[in-house]
């Protein structure tokens, strides 16, 4: 393994640890007595005492932290306070909606952005470029939940093509399930796709100004061949970074979008748990989302190493 990857792997592990510590501290120590927070100040003393025992609050913080982390590692977890089922089970169920949604949105975003970004770069400063860039500027400015509401208004309220929300479950078949995820995914992909298209365009334009692109042209390569062989791969390095960051943003975006469409995913679970003061669930969810983001960043690093020979160990 190259030094670059070794370093990144160390960062990956350290960030995971840090994320768990931060989440633990934020939810267990900062706001005072969690039992009090969950039940509210007016709760009877006895109820609080029972809950404290149930949450294991009589043990010292470090022990509770270690217990929690080892539970996370083994996949066993405490019961949700409101749902009375293990949190892991709850999350697994909800992920079945959130993950496909995020992946679908990411795919749509790339599908829009890649051709548009490349086309805009190739027609730099011409009308096609100006139109695409203006449209993407507007796309960036639209809040994704408003986009979602507009989509509901148009496709559900006016055209009746889609339901205004809800999820039939995967058991009702892949078709209907995907159909329910399509509008939410489009709402998420609009903003991300607009950002990505702009970024792809500028990455390509920057690369096209490089000396080695001129060298390739001097060799007699056509514009098209130069674009495919020299520009796109080099421009991919910054684009991969952004796609990684975007996936993280998409995961966060699902929290809002799932609430617009009343999809029972982890975003909705998170919000409901906050409203219900179900801190056990909140804690696990936050750590899981952070872990997913960190994992994606690590995958991005792996991609870098695959693309860029400068990150491989020298054989000199």
């Amino acid at each position, binding site marked *: 393994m190259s030094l670059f990857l070794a370093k990144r792997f160390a960062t990956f592990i350290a960030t995971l640890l840090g994320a768990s510590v931060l989440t633990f501290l934020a939810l267990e120590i900062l706001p005072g007595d969690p039992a009090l927070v969950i039940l509210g100040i007016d709760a009877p003393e006895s109820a609080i005492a029972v809950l404290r025992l149930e949450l294991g609050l009589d043990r010292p913080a470090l022990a509770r932290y270690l217990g929690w982390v080892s539970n996370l590692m083994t996949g066993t977890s405490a019961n949700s306070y409101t749902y009375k089922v293990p949190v892991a089970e709850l999350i697994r169920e909800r992920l079945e909606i959130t993950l496909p949604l995020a992946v679908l949105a990411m795919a749509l975003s790339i599908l829009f952005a890649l051709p548009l970004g490349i086309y805009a770069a190739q027609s730099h400063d011409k009308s096609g470029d100006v139109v695409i860039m203006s449209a993407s500027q507007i796309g960036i400015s639209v809040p994704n939940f408003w986009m979602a509401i507009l989509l509901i208004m148009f496709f559900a309220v006016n055209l009746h093509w889609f339901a205004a929300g809800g999820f039939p479950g995967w058991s009702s078949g892949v078709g209907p399930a995907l159909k329910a995820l399509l509008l939410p995914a489009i709402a998420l992909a609009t903003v991300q796709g607009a950002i990505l298209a702009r970024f792809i365009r500028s990455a390509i334009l920057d690369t096209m100004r490089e000396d080695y692109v001129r060298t390739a042209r001097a060799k*007699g390569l056509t514009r098209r061949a130069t674009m495919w062989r020299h520009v796109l791969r080099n421009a991919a390095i910054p684009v991969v970074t952004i796609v990684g960051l975007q996936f993280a943003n998409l995961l966060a975006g699902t929290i809002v979008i799932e609430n617009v469409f009343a999809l029972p995913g982890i975003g909705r679970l998170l919000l409901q748990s906050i409203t219900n003061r179900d801190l056990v669930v909140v804690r696990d969810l936050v750590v899981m989302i952070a872990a997913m983001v960190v994992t994606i960043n690590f995958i991005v690093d792996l991609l870098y190493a695959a693309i860029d020979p*400068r990150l491989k160990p020298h054989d000199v």
Partner: protein
Amino acid sequence: MALLEVDNLSVTLATARGPARAVRGVSFALERGETLGIVGESGCGKSLTALALMGLLPENARATGRVVLDGIDLAGLNEDALCRIRGNRVGMIFQEPMTSLNPLHPVGRQIGEALATHRGLGGAALRAETLELLGKVGIPEPERRIRSYPHELSGGQRQRVMIAMALSCRPEILIADEPTTALDVTVQKQILDLIRDLVRELGMALILISHDLGVIAENVGRIAVMYGGTIVEAAPTAALFADLAHPYAQGLFAAVPRVGWRRDSNARLATIPGVVPDLPDLPNGCTFAERCTLANDACRAAAPMPIEVGPNHSASCIRTDAARLSRKSA
């Protein structure tokens, strides 16, 4: 007929302060096997001239005039036909060997790219040809280096790779734009010697562009001196040094400190007053008039045409008589 004929080539750049005529009416001819040096200071138009010959001008530049390669007017060719000439009949080497190579491709692949494009080579034949090229430009262990990436090579080796790339299809003309400016003096000499030997061996014509008078003087048979977008003086190397006619060329050559010069005399370096002008500010008449001690109203009124001042020796100055006189008396 000459291999390359450049006739009244002009390049106009679109700048924030309006159009700038960066190259104005450059004409020259290059025979097969001939070596031409273009020398001048920054902004004199020498690099743009080279890029115009290749049809690789930046987006904000427009060229006019004729560039005729072996009877074909390049201006009349479409992009595909130009691509068949670039890298095939005309090769080019650039200044920065680090940035001129794609960091993500092994050097072997980058060298072989032109061969694959123009000769349709592939597989073992392409590899064999690439290995031979690497050996030809003096890179040790070609078998290993063919897989190396640019960042694993030294500056001199990278420039050797660039040379191998430019020469891969045996072009008739090699254009080298400041090929050694980014390199150390000792490496510079190796690279220049290599270029000179290969040009001779392959019978190519060479256009060597440099701001360094010594580099030009040692490596070409004929020199064109550029200032303000025009060729102010052109002559065979020996004739030029024997009889400099243009006031700018005289001033330029007198301003160079030479090794060993101090021992001969304690004289000061001669200087040209003023500064190298910005392109959009260049005057309509003789572009050197503002810095020239001999300039008169006629010089400022109209751009001078090249006049013959000796065999195969021309200068674009209406006061060459005075200039040569003042130099002789100095």
